[in-house]
């Protein structure tokens, strides 16, 4: 393909702009990394920019050597995987009928659902509802109350609505039921959006914090984010009470940096893996005109 001069200039500008902007987004994480690998004194004095000062791995050994944290890590992985599966299933099942004109209650049900997106239930009744369902202290309380993200479900529905009507018709002629159409035709064709929405759900479950605080009383079942909050919210002014004499190569500042990274890096790594689903044309590749 030939490019005009204008297009070349644009390409150049585009690359420069995107890479410059992307760099600003990497810096904060690099700095956190540097802080987590620096001595407490250097960190508290803000002398750390992008390279560790007075290098030490004490914060990381402290965190990674912590068994309780790994239990919490396991719980988070579990609710992320299980939660994403449950949510995707609920969401596609709900989205499919709502994307079909044949479903006559489509409009009222949609309206009813959208209303719940705008009107939020107050916290106490929400808490009491989940409690009445007997979910206190169960990991289900971290999954079921948010099983359908309305936003995500609507995204899937929008995508389903964009699929050619002829697909349904020809499938029906072949004797497919609606379940068959959904699982054999719609889902394989919707990989980009399913990847997107799974990512949204997975990140949401990964970051589960508020619900755990509400519903899980047993510290053994706390997910990672809850557990790590202990390091992030040390009441600084009360530190005098908790202070202990002794020299350690980490303190709240360096631990904070390390915990933030520890809590985000695994989920960040999911995205590059999902990127292949965003390749242009992957959806209709299988479709013959």
């Amino acid at each position, binding site marked *: 393909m030939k490019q005009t001069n204008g297009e070349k200039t*644009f390409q150049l500008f*585009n690359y420069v702009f*995107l890479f410059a902007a*992307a760099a600003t*987004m*990497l810096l*904060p*994480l690099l700095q956190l990394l540097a802080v987590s690998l620096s001595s407490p004194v250097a960190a508290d004095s803000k002398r750390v920019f992008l390279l560790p000062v007075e290098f030490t791995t004490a914060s990381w050994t402290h965190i990674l050597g912590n068994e309780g944290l790994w239990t919490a890590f396991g719980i988070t992985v579990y609710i992320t995987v299980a939660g994403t599966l449950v949510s995707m299933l*609920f969401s596609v*099942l*709900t989205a*499919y*009928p709502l994307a*079909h004109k*044949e*479903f*006559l*209650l489509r409009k*009222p049900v*949609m309206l*009813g*659902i*959208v209303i*719940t997106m*705008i*009107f*939020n*239930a*107050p916290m*106490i*009744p*929400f808490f*009491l*509802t989940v409690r009445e369902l007997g979910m206190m202290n169960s990991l289900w309380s971290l999954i*079921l109350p*948010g*099983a*359908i993200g309305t936003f995500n*479900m*609507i*995204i899937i529905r*929008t*995508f389903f609505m964009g699929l050619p009507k002829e697909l349904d018709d020809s499938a029906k002629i072949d004797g497919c039921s609606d379940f068959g159409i959904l699982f054999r035709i719609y889902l394989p064709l919707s990989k*980009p*959006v399913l990847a*997107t929405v799974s*990512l*949204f759900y997975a*990140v949401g479950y990964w970051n589960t914090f508020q619900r755990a605080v509400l519903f899980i009383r047993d510290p053994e079942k706390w997910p990672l984010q809850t557990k790590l909050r202990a390091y992030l919210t040390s009441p600084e002014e009360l530190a005098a009470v908790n202070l202990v004499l002794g020299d350690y190569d980490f303190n709240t500042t360096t631990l904070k940096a390390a915990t*933030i990274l520890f809590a*985000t890096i695994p*989920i*960040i790594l999911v*995205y590059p893996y999902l*990127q292949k*689903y965003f*390749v*242009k*044309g992957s959806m*209709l590749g299988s479709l013959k005109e």
Partner: protein
Amino acid sequence: MADTLDQLSKGTTPASVRIPKAKENLYLANMRKHWMLYIMILPGIIYYLVFKYVPLAGSAIAFQDFQIMKGMMSSPWVGLDNFKFIFTYQDFYLVLRNTATIALYHLVFGFPAPIILALLFNEVRLMLAKRVVQSLFYLPHFLSWVVVGGIVFELLASEGAFNMIRGWLGMEPILFMQEQRYFRSIVVISAIWKDVGWGTIIYLAAIAGINPNLYEAAVMDGANRWKQTLHITLPTMFPTILVLFLLNIGNFLELGFDQIYNLLTPMTYSVGDIIETYVYRAGVLQGQYSVTTAIGLFQSVIGFALLWIFNRMARKSEQGLW
């Protein structure tokens, strides 16, 4: 099955959908023919009833003097007193104006940003470069506002990057964070920086769904990149854009507490004090559940009204949410 439907039409769906007698046969026939669709949506319906509508009924405490020891059943009803309390709050209009202004900025600048960025990504031809840049752009989404707020304050401090540049240009340093006129720009720009990459994902998914044959045909017709974008890429993204716009508008007055709270200083209260920060003072500090619920209802009603209007407009092009 029929029970559920019955229940649906009676209890939970709004008045506008009550089924006229004459049409009943049509619905029954429809259900018989497409019963699978009804089965499919059942778990979803149950989910919304149990986890959304049941607790939502608790919003009634907005009309009560809710006393936590007594619970909802025995707390006294006070009618619209809580709403009166809000509307007579001396700074209510200031707070509302600030909220609406910032919300509007978010809509005008923040909403198109990921769309534009997604289009820019789409122009990157080198696969590797594209993947790297995309992955980097979505990193800030994972930082909390406490962290990002700290970064913003440090960048704009007297020794920060911005004032260093001003220094090289021979200009006096400005303490941006304590000047009202910069506050809203800072809010909008930092929000874009943090979430624009994340926001593109959904549009990239939409772009990924475009049939490559369309582009090939366009090239044959002599369309340049710009024309391709305008006539192929954007129209394909349009349904997604519209849905996101509608979903956004429904939560128009909800800006998110974390960002503003972490950027606000007393010097910028007059432009940055928003509904959420007020709710924090009234709710968290004073435990006034009834008042905060009333404020929430107010926000939702406004949001719903806006959504209703825009959805009507969208329906003209068969793209409405309902």
